[in-house]
């Protein structure tokens, strides 16, 4: 490496990455001899409450929560935190609504993926294939955004090149996910979540110190930036942002496949209950902590966000200016941990969509025997190939990467929200409804995004989710009802009431 950078910032990162790979190898050895598909894709349903909470939070919290978000808080003020705090609903909602139902169904159906459950509920291989395709497509967009965001942060803070950052943490995350599977992802996610919290505390401490203390920073802000103390930030935070954020990062996140799959992976209901509480505490701490730090960064930086190259550069610049050089490496592990934990969580689900939901299903259907070794080889290779593909895309990053990230988030929610919610809680939901909702809703969402079409200036998720619901209801009204055997499997409580 001929480039020069802050070597002391690099060493903690390298150490952290070694620990991640070490965990993965340890998990791989521990899982030897167990059912490979179950252990690789859902960790053999062995997660306890703490790990379940941390892996759900870490997968949910992306690098933008640590970079773009607090940068916006710097610009907008407390209105941004007021908006971001809706994310405290994410964990108790997904686990409270889907956690137990998905766990019960997964055990009855021997399912290891969300697509397995969709296939069984709607008795449709075609719908399952579409679901798998949607997952892989949108996950690739999200993962690319994480790679790019992480590598840019790395470059800004350490002084090494973007490509070096991408190689360092990009390859490591692909390697450890490929080797260790879901269990390794869950454990490394837990480490990442803990590191994120430590990173927030460290950064907050040094920002306060560099800004001359809390009283000094806040007094200056009250005088110079009164817009930061107003919920609409003098017009910078319109109500439409509040509304759409409730959908995008609040309510609709319950249907994200990467979150719902956590419902398949835990051991018992005591663990689920613990996770709901721990997860809500942790996600709130992270959200409020990092965004508040973004506002307090005014004590370190004196210009506008534009003066530092935009909101995405606020946190990297603050880290460099406020923290001692020897601690910079520790501080950026937090945001990078957010990045790699999201990538690993998505990577394993994307891989399961291809290997388990498509390949193994069709092999089984055609009575072809696939040896355990071949499954192992295919699973690890597929994980590595998807990771490598996204890695290559990230080498030449698209310019609208953050928009792509939000686009992917909305696309997944449009595709899966009603399919999962109505599919698992409404007997009247059927194949036609789910098919129309998933395909029609997603196509309409993508088309409105491409055309830049909005209603009342609301994010296109509002159009996607509304059309998806309407199509679901129309399809369920006109389509053939689900058969009795399926309804008995998914709604035994209703069937017993009728008998």
């Amino acid at each position, binding site marked *: 490496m001929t480039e020069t950078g802050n070597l002391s910032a690099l060493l903690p990162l390298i150490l952290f990455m070694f620990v991640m790979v070490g965990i993965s190898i340890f998990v791989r050895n521990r899982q030897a001899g167990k059912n490979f598909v179950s252990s690789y894709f859902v960790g053999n349903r062995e997660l306890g409450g703490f790990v379940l909470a941390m892996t759900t939070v870490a997968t949910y919290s992306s690098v933008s929560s640590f970079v773009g978000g607090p940068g916006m808080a710097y610009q907008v003020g*407390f209105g941004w935190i007021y908006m971001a705090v809706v994310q405290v609903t994410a964990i108790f909602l997904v686990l409270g609504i889907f956690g137990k139902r998905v766990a019960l169904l997964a055990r009855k159906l021997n399912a290891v993926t969300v697509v397995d459950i969709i296939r069984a509920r709607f008795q449709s291989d075609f719908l399952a294939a579409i679901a798998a395709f949607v997952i892989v497509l949108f996950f690739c967009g999200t993962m690319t955004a994480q790679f790019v965001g992480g590598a840019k942060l790395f470059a800004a803070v350490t002084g090494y090149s973007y490509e070096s950052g991408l190689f360092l943490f990009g390859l490591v995350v692909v390697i450890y996910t490929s080797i260790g599977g879901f269990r390794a992802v869950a454990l490394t996610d837990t480490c990442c979540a803990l590191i994120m919290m430590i990173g927030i505390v460290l950064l907050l401490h040094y920002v306060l110190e560099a800004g001359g203390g809390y009283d000094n920073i806040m007094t200056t802000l009250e005088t110079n930036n009164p817009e930061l103390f107003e919920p609409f930030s003098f017009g910078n935070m319109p109500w439409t942002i509040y509304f759409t954020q409730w959908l995008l990062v609040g309510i609709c996140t319950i249907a994200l496949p990467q979150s719902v799959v956590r419902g398949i992976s835990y051991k018992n209901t005591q663990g689920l209950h613990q996770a709901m509480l721990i997860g809500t505490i942790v996600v709130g701490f992270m959200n409020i902590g990092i965004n508040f730090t973004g506002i307090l960064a005014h004590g370190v930086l004196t210009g506008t966000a534009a003066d530092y190259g935009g909101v995405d550069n606020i946190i990297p610049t603050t880290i460099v200016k406020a923290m001692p050089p020897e601690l910079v490496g520790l501080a950026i592990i937090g945001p990078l941990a957010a990045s790699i934990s999201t990538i690993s969580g998505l990577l394993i689900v994307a891989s399961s969509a291809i290997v388990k939901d498509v390949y193994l299903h069709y092999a089984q259907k055609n009575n072809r025997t696939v040896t355990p070794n071949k499954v192992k080889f295919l699973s690890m290779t597929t994980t590595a190939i998807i990771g490598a593909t996204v890695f290559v895309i990230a080498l030449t990053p698209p310019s609208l990467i953050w928009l792509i990230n939000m686009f992917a988030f909305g696309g997944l929610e449009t595709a899966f929200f009603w399919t999962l919610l109505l599919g698992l809680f409404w007997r009247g939901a059927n194949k036609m409804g789910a098919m129309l909702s998933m395909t029609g809703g997603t196509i309409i969402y993508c088309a409105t995004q491409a055309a830049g079409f909005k209603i009342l200036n609301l994010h296109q998720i509002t159009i996607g989710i509304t059309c998806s619901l309407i199509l679901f209801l129309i399809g369920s009204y006109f389509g053939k009802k689900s058969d009795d055997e399926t309804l008995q499997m998914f709604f035994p409580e209703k069937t017993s009431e009728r008998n």
Partner: protein
Amino acid sequence: MQKKNPVSVSDAQKFDIVRREAIYTGLALVGLIIFWLIAGFATASLDVKFFHLPLWAILGTIGVWSVAIIISAVLSKVLFRDIDLGGEDND
């Protein structure tokens, strides 16, 4: 409230419990949204500050978070029941 051991109930009863718990969670969400609206927007016109922070900013952020924690605690410790999930992976 004393924590109950996992209950042995029929498959139908388990799904019925789970359905009720999902409804509780949905209602909790509605309650939190109402609190969020009142805590932030409804108090924004008040000229009250603590630690340099306007009341709406405290209630709308830390207040909402605290209520979410209380909701999670009530759901998981009071309203939700431990059930045997079945399958060989369960305890």
